[in-house]
């Protein structure tokens, strides 16, 4: 058999910015925050200079450009190299961020759809795009797509904004965005460039390595997290709720931060599912069955699978989401008996998981001794048949546990009349926002409709923030006016529920970008008819109540009843 030689792809084969030069690195090395990092502690295959070379890029922002938006998911932190930035302290108008400000339709607007709907699908009023506050990174106002991240939303009238809204100034050598990047949590503030500014963008992989190899940097990041979020998080956790501030501070100081899985888990997940393989063997282990419990594991973001060895693989018992804990029962039993108790099940990362580990001795010293027996959710092992747990296993395997509003169709009721599809099309300019087809389990089908995920990976990397969560009800929506058709969201969605459509003007003529000669695309997906009175049209249109929007919550899955 003949073979061909091919160099194994390496981590830094695709640098964040291929144009990062030696002079850039040398200049960065002189920055106080980076100069304080001990380059000697980095391994030979991951040197600090290599991280700067491959996991960072220098980005220039024009006055008014929005750098990060509150509520967006991002995978980068930023270090200010030059210029001034402003962070919004209070509320500000949503339209400022390129977000959809459309409210519920009124009576007349609803009725007028009857005659206003075009018979040609995906027709847009192109005049409204003229007012969109999007421009290219070089400052030229444009609607063309040069690079998928080359367009930005910008603040137009900075003096007025500074007058109307409370903001705080940020200057050189300040770092921000690291908690959202490492913790996969939404950005907590909106920051824009008050003057032309130069920033060092550090992608999360580089950030993780620096934090891993440099104690000083880790302490800075951890201290910021402890100050900003951990205390609040612990206080909201039932187990620690009754502790006084001093003790809570000690628990926070001792808590360790860990991340498992990769940020872009959807890529490997899609590959695995297309190959038809199960994923449990490929999931990073957080705790293994049979190992001694050394700390309480608290899920801060993402999902983790609780499973036991069964046959030649793992059997899923349940899954944990944000706020879930693992190992408390074992730790408490060990404290009571004085003998170490091993984990009765394994915990593995489903995608990207952010975990807090509270060491056992801290719990014994401050928590167990001060509180009554903690309520531990017992998982019934061996009392349920494989068939009873099959739905749960399927939902976890397909990552439907991520869904908050999954479109579930009961096939024993569905008469395949497509009234739901027609209703969706009628309320969305002639083209439905979902496909009445999808993965099936028994008589259930999860149709290809946006599930409005708990962990919406589609929102990561949207250059204009067009895809975002509605502040009213958390629905994931796309602002058509600021969507630049870069397909980032569509390729990121692990469930293929976002479709790119070619738009037309009011005359029904297809729009083509003169630069590239390619059609203008817009991302479309189910928006739960958030502007329509009465809620999702698909739900109301089903005469047989075959269709429902379901939160794949643990309780319902365990009971095997989704209706």
């Amino acid at each position: 058999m003949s073979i061909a030689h091919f160099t194994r792809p390496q981590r830094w084969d695709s640098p964040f910015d291929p144009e990062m030069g030696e002079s850039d690195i040398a200049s960065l090395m002189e920055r106080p925050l980076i100069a304080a990092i001990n380059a000697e502690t980095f391994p030979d295959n991951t040197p600090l200079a290599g991280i700067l070379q491959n996991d960072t890029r220098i980005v220039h922002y024009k006055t008014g450009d929005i750098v990060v938006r509150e509520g967006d998911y991002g995978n980068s932190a930023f270090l200010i190299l030059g210029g001034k930035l402003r962070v919004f302290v209070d509320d500000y108008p949503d339209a400022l961020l390129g977000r959809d400000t459309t409210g519920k339709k009124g009576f007349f607007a609803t009725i007028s759809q009857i005659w206003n709907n075009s018979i040609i699908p995906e027709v847009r009023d192109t005049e409204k795009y003229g007012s969109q506050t999007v421009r290219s990174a070089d400052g030229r106002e444009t609607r063309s797509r040069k690079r998928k991240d080359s367009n930005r939303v910008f603040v137009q009238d900075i003096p007025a904004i500074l007058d109307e809204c409370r903001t705080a100034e940020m200057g050189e050598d300040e770092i921000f965005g690291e908690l959202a990047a490492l913790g996969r949590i939404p950005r907590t503030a909106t920051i824009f460039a008050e003057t032309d500014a130069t920033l060092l963008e550090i992608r999360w992989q580089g950030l993780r390595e620096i934090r891993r190899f440099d104690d000083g940097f880790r302490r800075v990041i951890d201290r910021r997290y402890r100050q900003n979020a951990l205390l609040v998080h612990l206080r909201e956790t039932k187990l620690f709720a009754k502790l006084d501030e001093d003790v809570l501070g000690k628990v926070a100081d001792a808590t360790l931060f860990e991340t498992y899985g990769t940020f872009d888990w959807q890529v490997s997940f899609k590959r695995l599912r297309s190959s038809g393989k199960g994923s449990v063997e490929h999931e990073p282990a957080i705790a293994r069955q049979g190992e001694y419990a050394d700390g309480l594991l608290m899920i801060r973001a993402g999902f983790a699978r609780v499973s036991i060895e069964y046959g030649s693989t793992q059997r899923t018992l349940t899954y944990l989401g944000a706020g879930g804990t693992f190992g408390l029962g074992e730790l408490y039993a060990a404290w009571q008996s004085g003998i170490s108790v091993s984990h009765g099940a394994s915990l593995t990362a489903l995608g990207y998981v952010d975990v807090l580990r509270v060491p056992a001795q801290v719990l014994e010293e401050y928590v167990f001794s001060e509180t009554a027996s903690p309520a531990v959710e017992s998982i019934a092992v061996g009392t349920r048949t494989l068939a009873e747990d099959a739905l749960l296993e399927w939902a976890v395997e397909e990552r439907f546990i991520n869904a908050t509003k999954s479109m579930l169709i009961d096939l024993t009721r569905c008469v395949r009349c497509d009234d739901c599809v027609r209703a969706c099309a009628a309320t969305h300019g002639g083209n439905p926002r979902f496909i009445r087809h999808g993965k099936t389990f028994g008589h259930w089908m999860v149709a290809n409709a946006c599930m409005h995920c708990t962990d919406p990976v589609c929102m990561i990397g949207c250059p204009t923030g067009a895809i975002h969560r509605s502040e009213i009800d958390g629905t994931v929506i796309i602002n058509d006016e600021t969507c630049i058709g870069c397909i980032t969201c569509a390729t990121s969605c692990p469930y293929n529920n976002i479709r790119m459509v070619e738009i037309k003007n009011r005359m029904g003529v297809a729009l083509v970008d003169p630069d590239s000669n390619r059609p203008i695309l817009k991302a479309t997906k189910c928006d739960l008819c958030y502007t329509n009175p009465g809620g999702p049209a698909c739900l109301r249109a089903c005469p047989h109540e075959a269709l429902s929007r379901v939160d794949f919550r643990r309780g319902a899955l365990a009971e095997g009843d989704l209706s």
Partner: protein
Amino acid sequence: MNLARTRYLMVWLAAGMVFDLLLAENRSVRVHLGNPRELTGYWLLGVMIFLALFNLRKRLPMLPLGNAATWLTLHAVGGVLAAAIFLLHSGNLWPGGVYEKALAVLSYLTILSGIGGYFIQRIYPRLLTETGIEVIYERIPLRIGELRQKAEALVLECCDQTRFDTLGRHYLDSLQWFFSRPRFTFNHIVGSRRSQQWLKQQDTVVRRYLNDDERKYLDDLSQLAQQKDRIDLHYTLQGAMKRWLLVHVPLTVALMVLSFWHLLVVNVYSL
């Protein structure tokens, strides 16, 4: 009791009360030497218009006009109420007069097509789910075409590899007919297993003439035929669920037109 059953129960009770009220009013008009048919006629027309509004509701999904499921419940129970009022109005099952007979025939056909559609929609989804596959109706011709191509490629490969044309000739004689388009439509409609029996027979009659290598090809071919049979079932049942409305709706339209003419004629000449 689930929501749908509760809803049906409530609507049945309401329909019963309406009919009771109408009976009482009918009796009262009769006692006072009035014309009870005028009363029942207008009631019947009102109910028929309400039943027809369901179609309008379907065409205006963007408006908050209530759940289609509630509308369907009202439509189904209202249809039975309309049938009862019709009998009360006409006085017997087969009225006199050509025009009235035509009206009666249209009414019965509309009611029967409605009842038929109701049961089709109750039974067929379960039968489709039991096939274990799900296929979009509009894509079925494409799927059948793919299966036919696979089957023919398999038969050609068998002839090429085994140097025998027994399976090829058998395919041309019988299975080609099966793979060419959806088959056993009537049998699928009535829930018969005729297609399965036919496929088994095609397998049996040729198997004894094949060697071991050819039999492996026959096994693969039979699997494709089974897939095709399940898709045929989808084609037939999904088609029936879509097409019964093409009977029910035109009948309804014809009934409405004749009823309005009847109303006009009665008002001009009889009242």
